[in-house]
């Protein structure tokens, strides 16, 4: 059976190659820092289950130290110039979009076929991981197509991949770090503290104001945790279930569904949701790492108000 381990192996091998190519890159002033950083990522993906919890902890400290104290930097592996790219684009035209579509198409068709036909009954793929597996398959198919069609140098995909991962830098690892921070917050009881703090500000007897505290609380707690999933159980336990659903007889489906979406408004406004807000800023090479968040706040705030009103009018019909 194809499991997540196969994908970890694929990604781990790729990071190992990035590490080796970094170390060999004589034109790169921080080549050994980059080599160590991507090497640790490779170790995590290939050997994370072997080195133990404490070993993983040290690995994370290593990643944080290398990134935090400026030991990694951008690289400039050999690639084509803008003029060459323009030339290729004119020559190849819209056919260039086809290999770009192989990855999403494989993920889409594979997932649908696996879930809705008898193929899924064969049990070839770890349950609920099929989209990831087909994503990986799509990557390999796209690479094979590009090699057959355009015959780039054999090392090109890895060098081009390294060019992009070095442009992203530590932001590529940050989402995983933040997920781990969330686990520590939860273990330290941050959820209960926030829950009791929110309960203490609720005005007695007003359904509307209770809905406001619930919606704003979902957004604020999501801003702190970077993830509405962490906020929802806490706010449901503090306000949603005991007050909105039980005391005021609100519709549980509305309170639950739209309460979660109020949290998503918080996700749009926080650097803690790094994979949505900081990673694209790095990926698009913005000067302001909060540039994406700044463009999202004017959508998130009115939408939060809208969600609060929706809960009030739909749950208490």
């Amino acid at each position, binding site marked *: 059976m194809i499991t997540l381990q196969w994908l970890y192996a694929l990604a781990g091998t790729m990071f190992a190659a990035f590490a080796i190519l970094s170390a060999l890159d004589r034109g790169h002033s921080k080549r050994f820092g980059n080599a160590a950083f991507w090497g640790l990522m490779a170790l995590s993906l290939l050997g994370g289950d072997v080195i133990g919890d404490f070993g*993983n902890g040290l690995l994370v400290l290593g990643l944080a130290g290398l990134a935090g104290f400026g030991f990694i930097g951008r690289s400039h592996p050999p690639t084509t110039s803008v003029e060459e790219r323009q030339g*290729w684009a004119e020559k190849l035209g819209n056919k260039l*979009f086809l290999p770009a579509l192989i*990855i999403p198409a494989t993920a889409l068709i594979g997932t649908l076929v696996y879930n809705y036909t008898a193929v899924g009954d064969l049990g070839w793929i770890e349950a609920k991981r099929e989209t990831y597996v087909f994503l990986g398959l799509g990557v390999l198919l796209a690479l094979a197509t590009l090699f057959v069609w355009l015959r780039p140098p054999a090392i090109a995909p890895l060098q081009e*991949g390294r060019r992009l991962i070095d442009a992203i830098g530590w932001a590529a690892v940050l989402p*995983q770090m933040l997920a781990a921070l969330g686990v520590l917050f939860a273990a330290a009881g941050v959820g209960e503290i926030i829950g009791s703090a929110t309960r203490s500000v609720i005005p007695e007897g007003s359904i509307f104001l209770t809905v406001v505290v619930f919606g704003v609380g979902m957004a604020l707690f999501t801003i702190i945790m970077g993830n509405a999933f962490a906020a929802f159980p806490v706010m449901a336990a503090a306000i949603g279930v005991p007050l909105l659903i039980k005391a005021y007889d609100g519709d549980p489906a509305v309170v*639950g569904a*739209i309460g979660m979406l109020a949290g998503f408004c918080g996700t749009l406004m926080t650097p803690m949701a790094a994979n949505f807000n900081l990673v694209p800023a790095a990926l698009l090479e913005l000067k302001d790492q909060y540039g994406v968040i700044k463009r999202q706040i004017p959508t998130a705030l009115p939408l939060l108000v809208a969600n609060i009103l929706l809960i009030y009018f739909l749950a208490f019909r």
Partner: protein
Amino acid sequence: MNYWPLLGIALVVLGFALRMNPMIVVTAAAIVTGLLAGMDGVEVISTFGKAFNDNRIIAIVWIVLPVIGLLERFGLQQQAAAVIRRMKNATTGRLLILYLLYRQITAAIGLHSTAGHPQTVRPLVAPMALAAAEKQHGTLDEDTAESVKAYSAATDNVGLFFGEDIFFAIGSIVLIQATLATYGYDLAPLELALWAIPTAILAFLIHGARLLWLDRSLATSAPAVVGEGDHPRDGGGVLDGRRTPPPRNARSPSPRTRGEDEQ
């Protein structure tokens, strides 16, 4: 109740506000929070390490980078921009509204991981949005280009967040159902998913309106084109020492240089 762990949160807020390196901020906050919760040093590091290892699935998406990089090598971004330049009516706002709709609909039918910042925004959406903005605005200064790129990423997020919950088999719906079930409210996932539709529509309207606004500001902030039209007021036919710039579409065959290469 032990309120000390809140210090960890304060540390994160402070660190992000001061724009310190987030890797250091997060690590320090994790260690402080763990210690304040009564763990010893080894236990904190082990808990942090285990949680990091348990979340390795987040790193898998980077396997698309070699393909994206290879496609950039062969001019994918240039081709995406060229397609937009050939379209008469393409504007940044309209293009991003179309992508918003596409992202919401695909996410709503469970295809949320088929698009995203590495897979679609960097190689396709952002270069297309920049090309459209150039048509509206003329050559883009750095701040405007940065803004258009940031709007491209923001549109992806808004579309994803307020589309995916309409799909009943997504993690957040499962979480809502499981949480409420512990209190004795047994809801069908489909019932929850339906209540995500009003917010999805409002998100489309609010963000869509902002994108149309972006179009307006791109068009109105365009550098005044001297010499457009033949009226003397516009500089047409008058030689008063001002050099008449070439018509805007005269630039089109020359490749845009900045912001496209290491975009």
